[in-house]
């Protein structure tokens, strides 16, 4: 959906509220749901990629140095990466306003 839903009037909706422009889920900022965000301690990280594999939203990406970080547009702050991390290098920290 290119337009924000608040801009849509009832006559703008397609029959049966069908969404005909496929692939627009990527525009949905699930990062808004987050209250805690994961932070990696590079001194403990062994770059194994377990956090990347387990992230249910594919919101963890590899950096050019081979470490990992969260894509904060999508990361919901669920903490599964913290739970699965082999070395305990990830901690959840309070979001700053």
């Amino acid at each position, binding site marked *: 959906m290119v337009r924000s839903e608040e801009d849509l009037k009832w006559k703008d909706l397609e029959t049966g509220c069908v969404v005909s422009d*496929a692939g627009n889920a990527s525009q949905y900022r699930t990062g808004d749901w987050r209250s805690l965000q994961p932070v990696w301690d590079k001194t403990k990280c062994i770059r194994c990629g377990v956090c990347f594999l387990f992230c249910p939203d594919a919101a963890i990406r590899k950096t050019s140095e081979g470490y990992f970080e969260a894509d904060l547009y999508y990361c919901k702050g669920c903490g599964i990466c913290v739970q699965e991390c082999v070395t305990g290098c990830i901690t959840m920290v309070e979001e700053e306003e």
Partner: protein
Amino acid sequence: MNKKVGIEVSLAAADAVKMTNVDLIAAYPITPQTHIVEHLSELVANGELDAEFIPVESEHSALSVCIGSSAAGARTFTCTSSQGLALMNEIIFIAASLRLPIVLILANRSLSGPLSIWNDHTDVMSIRDSGWIQVFTENGQEVFDHVFFAFRVAEDPKVSLPVIINLDGFILTHVIEPIEYWDQEAVDKYLPDFKPVSTLNPDSPVTMGAFAMPGIYTEAKKAQDEALIKSKPEIIKAWKEMGKVVGRHYSPVETNQIEGAETVFLTMGSMGETVSLAVDKLRAQGQPVGQVKIRLWRPFPVEEFRKAVRNVKRIIVIDRALSFGGQGGPVAGEIRSVLYNEENKPLITNFICGLAGRDVTPEHFIDMYEKSLKMAGDKSKEEDYVMYGVRE
């Protein structure tokens, strides 16, 4: 036009579904709908009907299968009664909001409990506000005709909504009537091929059934309400076209001996025929009585109804369902609401009768007429509704 065939109404209804060249039927057998789906199952098994017949494990699955089928662009039919409709309930609302043109024949039966297999309108009233187009039929011929009508209206791209054809369980489903079959050629001319508004197709992907945040849900419901209201001209057009094809003329609100009538009975479904006998007898006695029948229950034909009763002093509303703890039956509630802002509105007496197949005869209606004359207008005797014939 064509020769009449003496046949059970359920079998004729199934034959009509076959003549629409339906693509998919998903249904679960339940009394008194059973003969309709059994016959369709036979027609498919015998190779007389080239369609998928999916024998599901529940009505919830039946309508879910129908949604998938209709969303894929297939002409889709299902059929149920009472508890089966109750089990479909969740999916009933989804089919309407997705605007999928599924046709459902509902063999009206009371809801449990106490467990009852007999006929009244409590089942359909439980999904009154679901967004389906809902029509009532009075006899077997009307059921047969309305199968073609229902598919034509549902699949009209200007409508694209599911349709329920109500027929009274046993009273219609299990009765043998003379029914005039249409020629296949006439059906094919009246009912064009199904061209869906949108389909699930990998070559042109869409999302159906997406979730909505509070910021858009209200707009979605407004669009749905407008779609149902605006289906009425297309419904009327489909009836007019049918009149040209088979010479039977249907309309949203139908009247009988309305000229000079001070009191009218109001019914939906097969009771209309019984009332017509009572009206004949009362007219023979010089009583100014007529009859109004609601054929189109949703979208409710507000203007047509107001016009039909504009010169009437008294309406006897017959309900075959009860809104527990409310003010009578759902039809009476609707009629009061439609007339509240009218000047010179008629008085309304509401009788709840014919629950779970209890017989209501012309004599009963004559008795109701006499009772209503005493009740209406006399505040001390006026009641919101009367459970007719209940043993005190």
